[in-house]
């Protein structure tokens, strides 16, 4: 009986021993997932520049800042919810919460504050439509993807990928106050790019995901089915990425870049499909993962250049 009491007391002491206020500004910055944020800023910038209406540079900067901070807030809330599985997976075990540098409460407060602030400022200083879309993006990433889908279905990143695809549409709405087919096309490109990108990563990190109990496709359906799905999504993605040039939204430079890099993407996806065992399989998946980042960057960079330098 006595030992039960002491064990209980020790547990209580341990629970209250979480040291808040130990974090440095860098730890809070890490909660914002800066690498993901940089991709969000870049794709949002393209949406902003491609929008037909002129927007004052200060307003454009404010819109980009709010979108970036909103994305960071969603990342922080994702780290708050996923702290338990982050501690198990080697890729994420050094994040601020599992490493013990920030408490879950601090992370939650930080994420909620930034989310409310980014949406509020975007609504007040830019326009209501873009603020509503940003709020929906944060909600979709945190509630639909992180809390609901991530641990319940292997289609988690397919549906959840929509939240990562929204930033150019939010930026377009910030610049023009409306939506049209072009920003939806940009969203569709990122949406269909997400599964091959993340499943390539999951192929060589399957053990990590399995240990954490995350039902990624390679864990639930196996490597072969994942390779088939990667190829199918890539077959759909490549013509979709070329389509802005075909329907007149983009120029010759984009047509050339999207065709050449699309061929590269398809070639690497076929390689992943063919090489199924040993080091060759891991190398093929790593190459596809790395190239997919370059692919998306080149597509959006070309759209950006075409918008900034007319006639390219």
């Amino acid at each position, binding site marked *: 009986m006595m030992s039960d009491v002491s064990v209980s007391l020790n547990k209580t002491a341990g629970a209250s021993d979480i*040291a808040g*206020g*130990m974090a*440095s*500004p860098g730890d809070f910055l890490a909660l914002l997932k800066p690498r993901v944020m940089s991709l969000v800023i870049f794709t949002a910038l393209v949406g902003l520049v491609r929008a037909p209406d002129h927007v004052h540079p*200060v307003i454009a900067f*404010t819109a980009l800042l709010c979108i970036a901070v909103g994305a960071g807030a969603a990342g922080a809330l994702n780290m708050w919810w996923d702290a338990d599985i982050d501690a198990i997976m080697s890729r994420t075990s050094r994040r601020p919460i599992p*490493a013990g540098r920030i408490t879950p409460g601090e992370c939650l407060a930080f994420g909620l504050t930034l989310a409310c602030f980014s949406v509020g400022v975007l609504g007040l*200083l830019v326009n209501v439509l873009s603020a509503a879309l940003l709020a929906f993006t944060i909600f979709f990433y945190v509630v639909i993807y992180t809390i609901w889908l991530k641990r319940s279905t292997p289609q988690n990143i397919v549906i959840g990928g929509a939240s990562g695809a929204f930033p150019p549409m939010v930026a377009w709405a910030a610049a023009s106050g409306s939506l049209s087919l072009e920003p939806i096309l940009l969203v569709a490109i990122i949406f269909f790019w997400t599964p091959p990108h993340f499943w390539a990563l999951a192929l060589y990190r399957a053990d990590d995901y399995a240990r954490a109990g995350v039902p990624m496709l390679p864990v639930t359906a196996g490597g072969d089915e994942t390779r088939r799905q990667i190829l199918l999504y890539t077959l759909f993605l490549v013509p979709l990425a070329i389509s802005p040039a075909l329907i007149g939204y983009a120029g010759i430079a984009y047509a050339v870049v999207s065709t050449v890099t699309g061929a590269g993407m398809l070639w690497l996806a076929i390689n992943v499909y063919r090489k199924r065992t040993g080091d060759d399989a891991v190398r093929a998946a790593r190459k596809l993962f790395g190239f997919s980042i370059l692919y998306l960057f080149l597509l959006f960079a070309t759209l950006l250049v075409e918008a900034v330098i007319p006639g390219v």
Partner: protein
Amino acid sequence: MSVAKPGQKRATVAKPKAATAKGSKPQPTPARQPAPDAGVVLTDEQKRRRRARSLAIAGVLGFLVLLFYVVTIVKLGPNVLNRPL
């Protein structure tokens, strides 16, 4: 749950010194012993981090003041000067 960084000390709560027994030799006081009513005593590392956080918050607040001012001017536009007196 929380793990301190290697080589890092946690904040400690100061405890009152135990009364010295009568007639025994007074023990030398360790250096930097907190006063009995000092409350939570931060380590030097914790103080440094708190200062860094405070400076970061000050910087962000200053930046927001500037941003709100500039956006207000931009939204008002040049016509703000052309008003009937």
